[in-house]
């Protein structure tokens, strides 16, 4: 972008009401990829949703542990609360797993350790999906 183009005032983005974007973000949170499908982007929804679900399922199959929001010193609090929030961001798959009795204790071993990271990674991927759905519904992205 040239210096002149940068000086041109850009039109203000229309203020999208919360009643329009909140349901989409909630749908995107609850079912990974569903926000994109709801916004008529089924291929993108299928791709990001399946990547998130596969990440979550591999985490479960590797017997990763869900983080508990326990507190202690700063680092421990950051890891546990942050990990718990990331787990919650997976949406319904997380609640389904816990309701069906998945309760893997945090044990030593690289497979369990990777499993925990896959479970957290699925939540973080779903946050990206939610942000993308929000950008679509607010018109910042096609």
């Amino acid at each position: 972008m040239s210096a002149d183009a940068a000086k041109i005032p850009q039109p203000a983005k229309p203020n999208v009401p919360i009643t329009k974007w909140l349901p989409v973000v909630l749908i995107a949170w609850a079912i990974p990829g569903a926000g994109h499908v709801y916004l008529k982007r089924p291929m993108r929804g299928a791709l990001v949703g399946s990547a998130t679900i596969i990440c979550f399922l591999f985490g479960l199959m590797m017997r990763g542990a869900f983080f508990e929001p326990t507190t202690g010193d700063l680092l421990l609090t950051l890891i546990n609360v942050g990990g718990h929030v990331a787990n919650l961001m997976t949406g319904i798959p997380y609640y389904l797993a816990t309701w069906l009795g998945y309760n893997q204790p945090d044990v030593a071993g690289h497979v369990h350790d990777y499993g925990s990271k896959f479970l957290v990674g699925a939540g973080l991927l779903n946050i990206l999906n939610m942000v993308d759905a929000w950008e679509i519904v607010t018109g910042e992205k096609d």
Partner: protein
Amino acid sequence: MPKISLNHMEASILLALLISVVLGVVTKKNDKERWNYGLYCFGCFMATLFGLGWLMKLGHG
């Protein structure tokens, strides 16, 4: 739920692949850019994986 056991390499490559797919899809505006960026991210993950792997091996002697 079946139990699986992936080694370090398999787990890292799988995670890199899944993250690259999502990053490619959500950050770019058309399919060509998405493919390119997804492949770029995957390449960066692989370079980091092998680079750090060799660094640790050489560091251990």
